[in-house]
């Protein structure tokens, strides 16, 4: 099963869970599967228009995905989808 790695700022909805094994054939399907298990997760990554939030970055097996096409990227069973969140004070 593909694995989704949850960034620390988004672990409120996941109740501290750091990684989630999911069923999904694309990045968006994987993220939706996490949201199904932990409601409230998806809006932190994808906006109301279905685009990646600008403060989130997506990686597939360590490679950053182009934000426009990222969500449609195919995912296989051994893949790791990592979400990064841009968070800082200042």
């Amino acid at each position: 099963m593909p694995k989704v790695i949850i960034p620390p700022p988004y672990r409120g909805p996941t109740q501290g869970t750091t990684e989630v094994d999911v069923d999904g054939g694309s990045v968006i399907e994987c993220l939706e599967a996490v949201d199904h298990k932990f409601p409230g997760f998806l809006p932190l990554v994808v906006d109301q228009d279905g685009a990646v939030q600008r403060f989130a970055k997506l990686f597939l097996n360590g490679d950053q995905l182009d934000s426009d096409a990222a969500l449609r990227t195919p995912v296989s069973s051994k893949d790791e989808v990592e979400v990064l969140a841009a968070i800082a004070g200042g």
Partner: protein
Amino acid sequence: MSGPTGDKLIYVDMTDQSIDVRDFPDEWKLLGGRGLSAKILLKECDPSCDPLGPDNVLVMAPGVLAGTAAPTSGRISIGGKSPLTGGIKEANTGGQPGQHLMKLGYRGIIVKGQPADAEKRYALEVNGDGVKIVAADDHKGKWNYALCEDLHGQYPATASFITCGPAGEARLTGASVATTDQDNRYPARHAARGGLGAVMGSKGLKYVAVDPGKTSARQPSDRKAFGALCKDYTKGYLEGPQMFKTGTSSIVPIANMLHTFPYKNRVDGQSPDAATLDGARIVESFETRGGTMHNCMTGCIVKCSNIVNDAQGEYKTSALEFETLTLLGANCAVASWEDVADMDRLCDEVGLDTIETGAAIAILMDAGQMEWGDADEMRKLIAEIPEGTERGNAVGNGAVAAGKFTGHHRVPEAKGQAIPAWDPRPLKATGVSYCTSPMGADHTAGLIVNPGLAPEQYAWESQKVQIVNTVCDSSGFCQFLQPSLDDIRAFYGALYGEEVSRETIHDQGWQVLEDEWEFNRQAGFTAADDKMADCLGQDAVGAEGAKVVFDVPAEIIQAVFKRMPAQEELFTAKASG
């Protein structure tokens, strides 16, 4: 080869305006910035002193790597006993003076004493010929931008400045110390927290001018290794996601979603005006107004600072940060980023911490003494602070003073310092940092944006981040570069040509915290002070059905003070502020 040698410390006694330049102790070579400030303060400042009296000591200490070719490494720490908290304080800022002092071989400026005549103003001039004190009465009372415009004409174009605005001269405990940007012109960077501007003002020191002339960068012991390290680290950063390339203000939406974008003196964790306060609006304005992103100091690869122009395309302020948009914006129910930009400029002009000032004004509003969202009145209020009005003094002295002035019960603070944007209710481990940091409520001391942590994880997470951030703030690296302890010790090793072990760097971080806690103990702090304001334990924020208060038990908070065994993640965790 042993790396940079022959460094000096500048001792200034303002009582008789004398200067003593001393050799920098070799055993302190890995101490800079916050760590150096703590060491000097514990050794040379009576913790029980009046922070605005002659016995307080003001320290200006660049980080260890400042002045070298290491990327984003020229930050400077301003330290002293805080007139706001009554404890030790280090406020860290960018700009050029840190780079310039280190290029000249000065590891720090230590200012003691006080002039007999409180009306006199002085300046410290540092350049390749040495150090001297000159009269600066002509600059008395000047706002920071006017002062720096004048200094720009008075000194060579290569000089940078550390300045005290009129709020500091008035000894207001929310006053900041300003430094000039990478073009040496605008006093837009601020060591803002803890009222250290008031300490500078109490010493009659209006500004420090640092002119490195054509001095070159500090040379490491192993130039080849150091150069390769700089190149690889820069390449890695630039090929990465570059999370801060549109500035900290761009995180407003996510902070709002996480209920850590406080509204109306923190009665809510979300603002209905998040869209109009979003830093994305600032970036959009670049197209028509000509603002841009830039680096606040030479050699910075993060470039998180925005230059904000007005509608006519003229420079207004820099940088308009997330914390400022939160405290002077959402927390006061101000909806427009342009209004906040005006107030940011005013605070930089007067020399005030935007966090403390925004928190104080919100208390006046919550107490019914101002209308929520009245930006015009806020501008008027900040501008009147140098005039010494009763209301201006209350706000200029920070949140606790504003609470006393109004008699209002809701004063969100820890150790006398206003809570920053990052809210300790959804982010409880960050709250533990606010309660235990020697700095009081300061997100740069130990920010942990992880609302999913279990209570038993709070103490370790807080201790870990406090150690990493302490070492980062001693190194000269900016927290937004997000260096780890392993990164920092690699740079130290190449700089001085000797390995710096994990144990050594862990010891250093812990020792700095120990020095600071010891200073606070001698200043009279006890475990009873390691707590959050009552209102944050009573007034909940969060989504319906999931509202939270700050309810971390004292035993978890106290666990931070006991050194825990190092885990692998201590050395790979990134600085977070």
